[in-house]
C-alpha cells in the first residue's frame, strides 16, 4: 500500500489522502458500500463504478458459506468472481459469528461455532480467517478480533481487548509467512469497549506493531452505545493512531456520523444503511431523508434531489414514479440504491474538496444547516465538532439542540 496525506484541515483533524492498493487508487476520506454477498444490492459492478465508487466491502463470513472458498479460488478470487476490478475490503468474519450465531464460543484458540451446514463444532482461528481472506483476495483484509457487544461492561471487555491484541500477532505472523502481504494489506482493529483506559492500552500495543500493519480500524462501536460516548472513543483512537496509516471506522453510515468521524480524523467507513434503507423506499438527501412511500410524494414530479448527478436523478426519475414502484419493483430499489450511494459519495467527496480548499469547517456548518435545519442539531454532533474547533451553533442563536441522537427522518404522511 502507498498511503499519502495530501492535505489537512487547518481547524479539525480531517485530512485528504491517497491510498494506492493492488486494484487502484482510492481517495480518502471515503464511504465504502457493502456487498455482503459479492454484489451491491441489485447493481452490476459496472453500475457501481459509474457512481464514482472504487472501494467496496465483502463479508468473509457470508462468502465462506456461499459460494465457498473453493469456488472463489476456481474463479481466481472474489474480484474476478463478481467482476469488480477495483479495490475490495473484507472483514474477518468474527463480527458475524457473534451477531448471527447464538452458539459461538470464544476460546484462546479462536471462535468455536456450530457449522451452519451440519451443526458440527467448527473453529475459526485468526490463521483460518486470514487464510480465507487470502482466498477471497481483497486488497484490505482485517484481523480476527474478539468482538463483544458495545454495551458489555466488566472484565470480559478487557479480556477481549487483550485477546484481540494476541490474535493480531497471530494474524500478522500468518499473513507475513503467506507471502501475500505485498498485495493484501492487513488492518488491525482497536478494541477496548467504551472504557478509555482499555482503549489506550490497546492503542499502545497496536501502535508498537505499526510497521507490520497497513492500517487501523476502530471496532466495537455502533452497537447501540450513546452517541456522546461513541464520538469520544473515535476521537481518542484517531488522536493516537499514527498519521501515516489510514483509519477505518467500522459500521458508520449516517451522514452526520460520517462527517463527525471525518472531522475527528477518520478516513474510511462502511455501513449497510444506505443500501438497506433504499430497499424500504427511503432516499437520502442533503435536506434529510425522504420516505418515498409516503402519499405526499405520489404526484411529486421532482427528482429525489435537484442537481444530483446520480443515474436516477439525472435521468429525471420523479419521486412520483418511485412512490409508485418502491418496495414493489426491484428496479425501484436499484434506483434508490444508486442515488443513496451517490449521496454518501457526495457527502465524502464534498468533504475532500473542502479539506483541500481549506473550507471544511464551513462545509460542516452548511451541511448541518441543510440537513437538520430548524428541526434541531443532534447535541452529540455539536459537542464532537466543538472538540475539534468547529462551533456549529456560531451565529445561530435560534438553532435547537436535540439531546440524544436527534436525527430528522420522515415518519408519516403528517410529517
Amino acid at each position, binding site marked *: 500500500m502507498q498511503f499519502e496525506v495530501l492535505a489537512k484541515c487547518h481547524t479539525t483533524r480531517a485530512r*485528504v489522502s491517497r491510498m494506492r492498493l493492488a486494484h487502484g487508487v482510492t481517495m480518502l476520506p471515503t464511504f465504502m458500500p457493502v456487498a455482503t454477498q459479492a454484489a451491491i444490492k441489485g*447493481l452490476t459492478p459496472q453500475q457501481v463504478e459509474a457512481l464514482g465508487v472504487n472501494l467496496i466491502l465483502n463479508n468473509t463470513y457470508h462468502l465462506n458459506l456461499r459460494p465457498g472458498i473453493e469456488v472463489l479460488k476456481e474463479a481466481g478470487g472474489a474480484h474476478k468472481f463478481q467482476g469488480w476490478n477495483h479495490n475490495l475490503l473484507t472483514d474477518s468474519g468474527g463480527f458475524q459469528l457473534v451477531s448471527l450465531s447464538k452458539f459461538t464460543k470464544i476460546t484462546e484458540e479462536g471462535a468455536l461455532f456450530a457449522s451452519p451446514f451440519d451443526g458440527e463444532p467448527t473453529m475459526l482461528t485468526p490463521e483460518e480467517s486470514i487464510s480465507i481472506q487470502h482466498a477471497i483476495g481483497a486488497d484490505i483484509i482485517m484481523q480476527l478480533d474478539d468482538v463483544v457487544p458495545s454495551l458489555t461492561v466488566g472484565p470480559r471487555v478487557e479480556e477481549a481487548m487483550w485477546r484481540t491484541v494476541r490474535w493480531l500477532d497471530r494474524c500478522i505472523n500468518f499473513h507475513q509467512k503467506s507471502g501475500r502481504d505485498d498485495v493484501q494489506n492487513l488492518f488491525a482493529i482497536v478494541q477496548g469497549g467504551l472504557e478509555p483506559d482499555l482503549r489506550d492500552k490497546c492503542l499502545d500495543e497496536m501502535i508498537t506493531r505499526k510497521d507490520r500493519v497497513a492500517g487501523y480500524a476502530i471496532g466495537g462501536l455502533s452497537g447501540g452505545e450513546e452517541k456522546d460516548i461513541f464520538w469520544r472513543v473515535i476521537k481518542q483512537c484517531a488522536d493516537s493512531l499514527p498519521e501515516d496509516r489510514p483509519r477505518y471506522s467500522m459500521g458508520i453510515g449516517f451522514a452526520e456520523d460520517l462527517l463527525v468521524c471525518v472531522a475527528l480524523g477518520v478516513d474510511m467507513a462502511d455501513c449497510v444503511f444506505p443500501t438497506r434503507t433504499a430497499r424500504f423506499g427511503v432516499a437520502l438527501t442533503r435536506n434529510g431523508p425522504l420516505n418515498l412511500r409516503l402519499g405526499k410524494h405520489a404526484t411529486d414530479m421532482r427528482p429525489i434531489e435537484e442537481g444530483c448527478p446520480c443515474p436516477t436523478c439525472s435521468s429525471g426519475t420523479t419521486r412520483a414514479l418511485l412512490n409508485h414502484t418502491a418496495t414493489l419493483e426491484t428496479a425501484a430499489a436499484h434506483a434508490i440504491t444508486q442515488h443513496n450511494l451517490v449521496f454518501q459519495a457526495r457527502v465524502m467527496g464534498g468533504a475532500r474538496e473542502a479539506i483541500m480548499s481549506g473550507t471544511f469547517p464551513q462545509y460542516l456548518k452548511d451541511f448541518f444547516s441543510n440537513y437538520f435545519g430548524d428541526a434541531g442539531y443532534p447535541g452529540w454532533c455539536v459537542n464532537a465538532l466543538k472538540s475539534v474547533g468547529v462551533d456549529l451553533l456560531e451565529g445561530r442563536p435560534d438553532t435547537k439542540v436535540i439531546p440524544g441522537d436527534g436525527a430528522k427522518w420522515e415518519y408519516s404522511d403528517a410529517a
Partner: protein
Amino acid sequence: MASRPLFTLTGSPLAGKYGPRTGRIDIDRQDGTSILQTDTPALLTATSRGVVPHLSRDNVHLTKAIHHIQLPFESFLDRNPPVLTLVEGTQPLHTFLGFDPNKHAITLTLRDPSDGRKMPPNGNDFVSAHCTRGVRKVSPSAWKSYVSKCKPDLVVALSDTPFTPAPHSQKRLTKSIERSIAWLADILRVPLPDEAITRPRNVLVHLAGGVEAEARSEFAERLTEPIEQRDAPGLSPPLNTLDDGVAGYVFDLQPLHAAFSAEASRTNSSPSPANELLHSSDRQRSSPETSIALVELLHASLDPLPADKPRIINSPVSPHEILRLVRDIGVDLIDGSWAQRAADIGIALDFRFPTPTDTSCANAPVPRARANGKRDLGHNLFDALYRHDRSRLASCFLDGQSASSAVPPPHGLPVCECHACSPRSPASRILHSSVDSQAWADVRPYALQPPVMRSYVHHLLHTHEMSSHALLAMHNLTALSRFFAGVREVIARGGQEEFEREVERFETTYDEGMALWDEAERMWLEVERARGKGRLSREREKQAASMIGTAVDL
C-alpha cells in the same frame, strides 16, 4: 398531413394471407418525421408498474434488444387521477418512465395481458382492472381521456375479455362482441371540437371471440361492415368501417391457453398452482396441438380482415409456439413476457434460431438433453450443476471479450451483446471532488469486461440477490431479440420453405415440454420461502436494532 402507415410488409409478397412474413413498423411524429423504425417479427418487452422488471434505467438503455414496450395502465389506477395523466409534455409516458422517444415505442393497454387472475365481471360500460388497492372500473370515456393525456405511440382499445370462471355462455360471448365493438367505436370517435382531445394515433384492436371460432369471425366481420349511420357523425375523418380506423390487431393468448387447459383439466385433474408467488400463466405450456387450435382461432379472426396490418401476439409461452404462429399466421410483434419470467425464476436462455448445426461448444457446457433427446432452452442456474461453472451464460453465443480478443475462438458463434455476456466498464464515472481524477487515471472507460460467470449468478440466486435477476433479464431479452433477428433472416433468405424446415429442426432440437421451467420454479420457490418470506420484517428488526433512536418508520 399524410403520415406513413404504421406497418409495411417487406420482402417478397406472400402467396396468400398467411405465412411467415417480414415487415417494418414506423413510428412517426405528428409532423411525419420518423422517430423509430423496427423490422418485424420483433420483440415486445413487457413492463410491470411502468418499468421493465429488474432493470434500472441505465440497464434499460444498455439493453439494445428493447425497442417496443408494452405498458399496462392498470397499476396506475391506485390513485385518482392516475399519475401518468398528470405528466406534461408531448411524450408524457417516455418522460415519466424514462424511455427514449427515439428508441422506444410504447404500446398502452389497460390490462396486463399476462395477468390471468379471476376478476369481477365487466359491465356494459366498464372494464374491471386491477391495482394494488383492488378492482377499479374503467369506462370507455375514462380510457379515452387517459389515452389522450398519455399520448402513447400505440394504444389498444378496451376489449371485453371475461376473467370470470370458464366456461362462458354463448350469450356472454355475444355480449363480449357487442361491447368490444362499441368500445372500439368510442375510442375512434372524435369528440366535440372544443375539447382538446384528438383521436389517438395507432389504435390497435384486440380480436375478440374467445375460443369460439364463429364468435371470432363475427367480431372480425363487424369490423369490416359499413359503419351504422348513428355512429358516423363522430367518426371523422369519415371512416367507412371500424377497421379503417384500426392500425393493427392484437391477440391475447393467455385467456385462450387458460380455456384450453380448463378443457383439458376436466378430463385430467391437474391441480392449478395455489401459491401467491405464481401467476396463472406460469404453468401454461404449448404443444403442436395447442398451436393448431390457436391457428384455427386466429384464422377465424383474420379471414375477413386485410393482411397488411400488423399482428401482435401477447403471452406466447414458448419459442416453439412463436415459430408456429410466425409460420402459420404471420405474426409481427411478439410479447416476450415468458422469457422475462424465466429471468425471475433463474433461467438463462441458451438457444438460437436457426438452430446451430453444431450444438456442442468447446468452452461452455450446452443445455442438458432430456429423455426425449431434446435440449433444454437454457440453464436453470439454481441447479447445483452450476456451482463451479465458470463459463458465460449461453453456450450458443460468444461473449464480447472473447469475440474481440486477438485470437477469437474458432466457433463463428454470434455474440450475445447483453450486459451480462458483454459487459463494458462505464463510459464515465461521477467525480465527487477535484482530486477524484487521480483515482481513475489508470482505468479505461468503455472497455469490454469478462462475461458474467454462471457460478456467480448461481451464487446470487441462492443468496437471494436482486442482481441475478437484472443480469438474467438483460440476457434473456437479448437472446430473444436475437431469436427474432434469426427468424427475420431465415424468412428473408429462404422464404416459406426454408422457414418451415428450420422450424422443424428447432422443434426436434429443443424441448417444448419445458421441464426446465418446472425445476427452476421449484428451486426458486424454495429460496423465496427461505430468504424472501418474512425478509422485510426481519430486516426491519435489524434496522431498528442498528438505529436506536433514529429509526426510519418503515
